[in-house]
């Protein structure tokens, strides 16, 4: 059972949907915001986020913390992220188990790491630093990967489980990413799922991908496919009620077209766990004063 608040069923906040959200007040329980989109000085992004936050709980999800990078930690980035979190009071702050660049370059991609003991020490120490800087526990997401390093000494799920034990961080279990990586590397996604500490999962991501035949790419530009819905049901059996959301980053349709996916996530949770799993915890729905 997750130790985190159960926010219900959410959606990734995208600027294309601002008007529909304010005009229609859709039945979304919460929104996930991309932290970097709001790590700006002012103007429309922060004004819109203020309005969203008045109505909905949010979580903050970053794409460039680069927590596994061997480059020096970017303290300015972390200070700015802390400022945003202190201002908007998200339920939690997440980013990915990956690196995005070294030597001062940023490749703007979520790059894979070898799952080695050296890597574990490095990432654990970075998570400790980040948690100290942010004043809160981190939530770490598994990424889709296309290559694996021959020098890995453990599986990705063992690496993640050990990180939670060493640092107290939680996990954002991206169901699609598990499915994509399992296909690309030829393992059973249930093996991944079964190895994750039961109380460590704060959130599920549900998304679509591109099927290239011999491999799959995590494009987030399609509806959630049946295989991912099925793995989501397995994850619900395993972890119980966990805040879940639809993540669409490209080919973004109108809000009304995404709502059936939000409702399907809710309906599957009800099917698997019972009626109470369709309703977020009341205490989790507090919005900003």
């Amino acid at each position: 059972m997750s130790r985190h608040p159960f926010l219900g069923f959410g959606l990734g906040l995208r600027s294309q949907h601002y008007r529909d959200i304010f005009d229609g007040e859709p039945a979304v329980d919460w929104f996930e915001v991309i932290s970097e989109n709001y790590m700006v000085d002012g103007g429309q992004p922060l004004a819109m986020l203020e309005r969203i936050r008045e109505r909905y709980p949010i979580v903050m999800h970053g794409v460039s913390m680069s927590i596994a990078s061997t480059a020096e930690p970017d303290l300015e980035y972390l200070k700015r992220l802390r400022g945003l979190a202190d201002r908007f009071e998200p339920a939690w702050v997440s980013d990915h188990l990956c690196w995005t660049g070294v030597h001062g370059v940023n490749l703007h991609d979520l790059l894979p790491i070898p799952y080695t003991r050296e890597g574990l020490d490095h990432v654990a120490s970075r998570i400790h630093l980040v948690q100290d800087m942010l004043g809160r526990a981190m939530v770490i997401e598994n990424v889709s990967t296309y290559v694996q390093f021959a020098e890995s000494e453990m599986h990705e799920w063992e690496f993640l489980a050990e990180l939670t034990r060493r640092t107290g961080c939680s996990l954002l279990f991206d169901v699609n990413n598990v499915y994509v990586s399992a296909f690309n590397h030829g393992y059973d996604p249930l093996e991944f799922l079964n190895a994750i500490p039961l109380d460590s999962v704060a959130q599920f991501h549900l998304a679509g991908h591109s099927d290239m035949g011999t491999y799959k790419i995590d494009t987030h530009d399609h509806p959630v496919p049946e295989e991912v819905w099925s793995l989501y049901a397995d994850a619900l059996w395993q972890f119980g009620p966990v805040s879940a959301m639809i993540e669409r980053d490209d080919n973004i349709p109108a809000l009304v077209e995404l709502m059936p996916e939000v409702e399907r996530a809710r309906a599957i949770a009800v099917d698997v766990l019972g009626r109470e799993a369709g309703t977020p915890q009341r205490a989790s729905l507090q919005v900003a004063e």
Partner: protein
Amino acid sequence: MGRFAELQDLMQHAILAGDSRVLETLAPGGQEDKAVLLDVYRSAYVLRLVEIIGNDLPVLKAYLGETNFNGLCRTFIKARPSTNRNARWVSQGLADFAAATPPWADHPEMGEIAWLERALGNAFDAADAPVLGLEDLGAVAADDWPSLVFALRPSLELGQFTTNAGDIWIELQDGGEDHPPVAALDEPQAVAVWREGLTSKWRMLPPEEAMLLRAVHDGVPFGALCEMAAVFAGADTAAARTAGCLQGWLCAGMLSGWKTG
């Protein structure tokens, strides 16, 4: 350097420079050759950055056409890999790059369109600040006016066009396909970009107004602005012309405050 760092170094080289040494460190792929899978990262890197730049500079993309725009972006990305964590800044140097790099440097309107689009983007999420209005100056004593120093809103950025890039932008910005033929201006002309409310705006500035606004940026007090205007275009109406410019800036929300110097 530890092995963990070495592998990141090799992977980055593979993506940026096509260096394939990292292949020796990769495990066999599930159903696909690992070289093909490594290429997923290589191509995603370029495609993602081209897409980000295209989102930031849609008018330049429409003006150049997809193929030429992609060519410019790919050359830019190779010459100047991104150094900022936030993808919002990836297109920041493209205007200067296009203005200085052949063959785009031979078409100054390209760099100018890129500059305008990027400046509009900068204004979009620049720091908030109070807006100084006409009514805020009502209480200023007459004797204090010559020493008034005005503060510009943080979103205000000044640039310069040598071509009709602004006219081209106007025709293409709403998805239009036709635009006027490129033409050089008789004289370079200043352009101001700022944010009014939550909306980014821009306009061309006549030479005298451009001179005065730059002086405001440099902290020149109102009395000295009037003296500059007198030298520029005659003393008789200098104070009135300067006050007219000030009124325009106030109405457009370009100023955020004042103090006596």
